[in-house]
Structure formats: C-alpha cells, structure tokens
C-alpha cells in the first residue's frame, strides 16, 4: 500500500542514499555513487523503490531533485537531526561528516535544532580529505583507519587544506616517517577539528556521529577521547540523512 510507505533520498557529493519506511520500520535502503550524473543516479534509485506515499530530498543535490522530480526538500541539518532524535531520543548533538561537508548540530531536549556550524567551502577535514590522504599514503580507506588505530605514536600534521596536507604528507614520507604514524596524525587532526566544531555549538555530551566517515572507528574513538564524552555511531551512519528525510516525509514536512 503506497500510502504507508515513505521515502527519503540524500543526494550527497560522493554518494546518494535512499531509505523507505513502512510501518515505522526501514523496509528498503540502497546506495549509489553520485558520479557525474547525480540526477540519473537518483532517478535509477527512485525507480527501484516501488510506489511510495510521499518522498523528500535532502543533501547537496536536493534542489536538483526539487527542480527535476518535483520533490519537496529539506536541509541535511534538519534531516540528520531528525534521524538522530528518532534513533536516540534525547541526544543533544549530532556530528555529520560527509563527502565534502562537516556539520555540528546542537539539539534541545525535544530534538529541535538549536544551532549548527558547517565547514566553509573548503573540504578540510571531510570525507574527501580522508580519501585523498589515504590515497597519498597508498592505503584503502579501511587500511587507512586500521593503520592509524594500530599505533599510539603520531606525526603532527599542521595543514588542514587538502592540497597542502597532501604535499605535507608527501614530504613527511620522503623524510622517512612511518606511514602508520602519519595516518594517525591525520586522524588526530580531523578529530580535533570535528571536536572543536562540536564544542562551538554545544556543551552537552551525547553525540550521534553520522555520515559515511562515521564508519571510521579510529576517528570515532579519537573524537570521543577529545570530547571526554560518548560518541555513538548508528548502525548505518551513511543512511542517516536519507532516514531523516523519510521520517520527515512521513510527518508531512
């Protein structure tokens, strides 16, 4: 029955996710690369859903779907806040690190957004930054996180700009530094930046960490240590934006 199914689609800079809710449960979820053709990719994902009562778009490409597919839109900030509150009622902060954005969101006790911060136009500390650094070190993303987690020593990285950090890393490797320690240094830099952004919006603990980068366990642990409070990662953090959009579609937002 179409009326009981609600879809959310999150068109991010690196990947697109869809989630379908039915009877309060996630009935379907899928993910594709954004690629050079986000609209085509979104269309393919949506075509596979079957009939839905209402759908909502979020993410960097939300207006593309708004314009071409006539979908209502909501910002990632509201979508992530909604999903976090739904899974963890009473949580007071959300950290979302996606492909090219980092967002810190403070919530009140009822889940309403109080404040938010976003990185500016540069990709410092985002998923894209980690991808470029992993590649510079000759790692896959999984190896990169494992390498950083496997050592306690680290090499300090001073650049946060993706381009400058890549040349800094190249220089460190040329100076004979250990690859794992450089990887750890990069993780610490990203964790420090994320924690600082969280502190700017909120003094409350109980952080939900969403977005694809939250799958990096080393980073989660470092942010937790930096904040001195718990940082929880939902089971499928990369689907939180789409889940929030589906929840808002169901609520008639």
């Amino acid at each position, binding site marked *: 029955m179409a009326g009981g199914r609600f879809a959310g689609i999150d068109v991010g800079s690196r990947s697109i996710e869809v989630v379908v809710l039915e009877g309060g449960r996630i009935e379907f979820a899928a993910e594709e690369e954004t690629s050079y053709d986000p609209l085509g990719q979104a269309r393919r994902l949506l075509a596979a859903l079957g009939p839905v009562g209402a759908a909502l778009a979020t993410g*960097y490409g939300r*207006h593309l779907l708004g314009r071409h597919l006539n979908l209502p839109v*909501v*910002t*990632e*900030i*509201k979508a992530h806040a909604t999903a976090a509150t739904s899974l963890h009622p009473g949580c007071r902060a959300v950290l979302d690190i996606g492909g090219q*954005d980092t967002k810190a969101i403070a919530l009140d006790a009822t889940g*309403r*957004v*109080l*404040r*938010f911060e*976003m990185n*500016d*136009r540069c990709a410092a500390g985002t998923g894209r930054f980690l991808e470029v650094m992993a590649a510079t070190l000759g790692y896959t993303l999984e190896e990169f996180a494992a390498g950083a987690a496997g050592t306690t020593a680290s090499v300090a990285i001073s650049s946060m700009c993706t381009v400058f950090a890549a040349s800094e890393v190249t220089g460190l490797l040329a100076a004979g530094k250990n690859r794992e320690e450089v990887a750890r240094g990069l993780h610490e830099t990203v964790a420090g930046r994320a924690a600082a952004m969280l502190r700017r919006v909120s003094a409350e603990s109980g952080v939900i960490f969403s977005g694809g980068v939250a799958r990096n366990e080393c980073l989660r642990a470092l942010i937790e240590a930096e904040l001195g409070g718990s940082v929880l990662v939902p089971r499928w953090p990369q689907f939180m934006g789409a889940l929030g959009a589906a929840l808002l579609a169901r609520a008639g937002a």
Partner: protein
Amino acid sequence: MSDHERMWQELGLDLSAHDGLLKVLGKFYGDIYLSQQGRLSGMQYLDFVLSEIHGLRIQELLSAKAAGGKVVGTFCVFAPEELIWAAGGTAVGLCAGADVGTQLAEKVLPRNTCALIKAFVGFKLARLCPFMESCDFLVGETTCDGKKKAYEILDDYKPTYVMEIPQMKGAADRALWQAEMVRFKEMIEERCGRAVTAEGLSAAIRMVNDRRRALQRLSRLRSAQPAPISGRDALLINQIAFYDDPPRLTAKVGELCDQLEERIKAGEGIAHGAVRVIVAGCPMAVPNWKLPYVVESSGAVIVGEESCVGERHTRDLVAEDGRSVEEMLGHLVDRYMQIDCACFTPNPTRLDHIVELARRVNAAGVIHYALQFCGPYTTEAYKVEQRLEAEGIPLLKLETDYSLEDIEQLKTRVEAFIEVIQEVPRG
C-alpha cells in the same frame, strides 16, 4: 559606435571588457530583480537607473564637470558629502561590489584582502568603472588597515585624499574628527575653487537630510506585515542612493513610498508567510546581490539592513539649525561621530542598533554577513553573537565574498537557519 560607447572610450575604459561586464550585470539583474513578482510601478525608475548605470548618470556627471564642477568619488559613509555639494562638487559613492579585475588587483594587493578592497582596486586597474574614471579625485578613509594601505596604492592611479577616522568615541577622538572635518573643508574648497558658505552648506545639509528622510520612510514602511517590498528592491534603492542625483532620488523614493503606503493600507504585500530576517554587517554595494538572492529564494524576506548600505547610511540626520559655517561643521562632526562602524572600539551602540532594528521590524532572526578577511566585522561577529544570544534572537553568521562558488553552501546554511527559526515558538 553609440554615444555611450564614445563616452566610455573618451573616459579611457577597456571597451570590450566593459561590454562583458554590462552583459553579466544585465543578466544578473534580469535573474535576480526583473523575475520578481508583484513589483510596484515605482520600481521602474530604479530599474531604469540601473539599466543606465554606466550611461545617463555618467553623462550627467560629465555635464557637471563641463560646467566647472568637480566630481568626487567616495568609498565610505564617513565622507561628509555635504561639504562636497556645498563646494559645487558632485559626490559619488563608488560601488566596489563585483568580482572584477581581481587578478590585476592581486598584482598589487595581498591575496588575503577582502573582496571590497580588491574590487575598487580591480575596477581602477582594469579600467572598467566609468564613475571612477569620471572622478576628479577620490576620498578614502582609515576605516581599516586594508583600505588605508590600498589607498596609498590607488593614489598612484588616481589622486586619493585620505581622511583619518577616529577609532574610539572619546573627547580626543571627537577633536581629531573635528580637525579632520576642517581639513576636509579646506581641501575641498581649494580643489573645487569655491568657498563653502553658510547658505550653500545649509542647503546641502537639507538636501542630504531629505534623502536620508526618504530612505528612513522606506525603512519604516518595510516593517509592515506582510512586507510590502522585497529586501532586494529595498537594498537596490539604498545602493542607488550613493550615486544618483539626490533631489531626484528623494522624489522618486517618495513616490514609491506613497505606493507602498497604499499597498499596506490594502493589507497587501509580497511574500506572504515568508520568514522575516534582517541582514547585519558589511556593506553590500552594487551588484553584490548574492546573499539577498539566496535568502529570498529560500522562503524568507529581508526587512532591514544594519549596514553602511542601509541603516548606517540613513539613520542619523545632521541638525539643520546651524547658522554659521562653524556651527554647521560642529553639527556635521556630531552626526558623523554617531556612525557605529566596526572600526570603533568598543562599539556597543552597533549591538544596540542591531537588536533595536530586529525588534522594530519584527524579524525572526538576524543574518550576520561579513566579507572574508574583513578583520573588524568578522571579529565583531562574536560580540554580536553574544548579545543576540542574551536577547534570545536567533543568529546565523556567514563569511563570504563576491564569487559565486560558495552559493550552494550558503543556500544550505540559510535554508537550515530558516528551518530553525520557523520552528522556534515566537512569543
């Protein structure tokens, strides 16, 4: 070659680059302004002024010059334009609101310079601004280090007189400003070849006050619910006020305000149900319409600008009861000392004015707009944040420049802010 083109060539503009600039400006204006619904016929004059931005107004300036008057370009609301008019000159506020000649500007300026400074240097180096080329000389001021040092460089290309702006509001600062006002008067008399008389200065004070009063009336009318005019249109009027003929602009704004009053009486407006916000911070000069466009295409309407292109330009009047030139100079000093630019320390009245404006126009939130690398405004944003938090007024702090590359990030921030303030129960 058209008359305008001949005029631009005689002014020494780079004709092909200038042609490109006008095309971009025209497209921008079409997308951002002419596409709006429900605009009043009173806006047609402003559309016309903008369509002739580099045409008819320049002809007028050149006619004034031919008649022996001087054209004086200014960059700041501190320039006491009354003295320029009283000496038979024409004051023109130069815009510096576009990403133009940036590469040329970066040859002489550090890259970490704000977009506004790069723009006025860029316009000059690229020979793209007929206003600047029409000017006999320019008036700069020491509002920030970037401008202060850039004027030294600009002076190599166009004579630039620099006024020293005080940085505090004590008695010694007022004395400095008084001395600067006298120095400015003497300079302008010498360069214009005409003494400032009590009669002339009194007339100039009234003329500029009349324009301020017309813009104050517009500011009051905008506060109606629903807003009778878009923030973009109101901003445009405040932008044009810097270079149009003052009595004519006063009359035209008056006509528009009459129409707005009718509209308000009928209970009509634009953007029913839009979230009301004000923008506070750095000036937005023509054609810097990026943020207003983003805000107003995200379900909000801008109902006030706490800015030099806005309230800071029009809020205070000069007392009109001065009888001698000395007395009037004192009134000018008093009026201009009230300007609450972020170059002052401390600067508590600016915070008061932001709160006052937000309350008066019944805004649900404030967007603080600072140009990247603008030390005074980006730093003062923290004080604004503290104060608005204490007052319970939601704030979104933005830092940007004139380029369009961050428009999607701006949209996300602005839309999320609007979502947030829509949900806040307002009491």
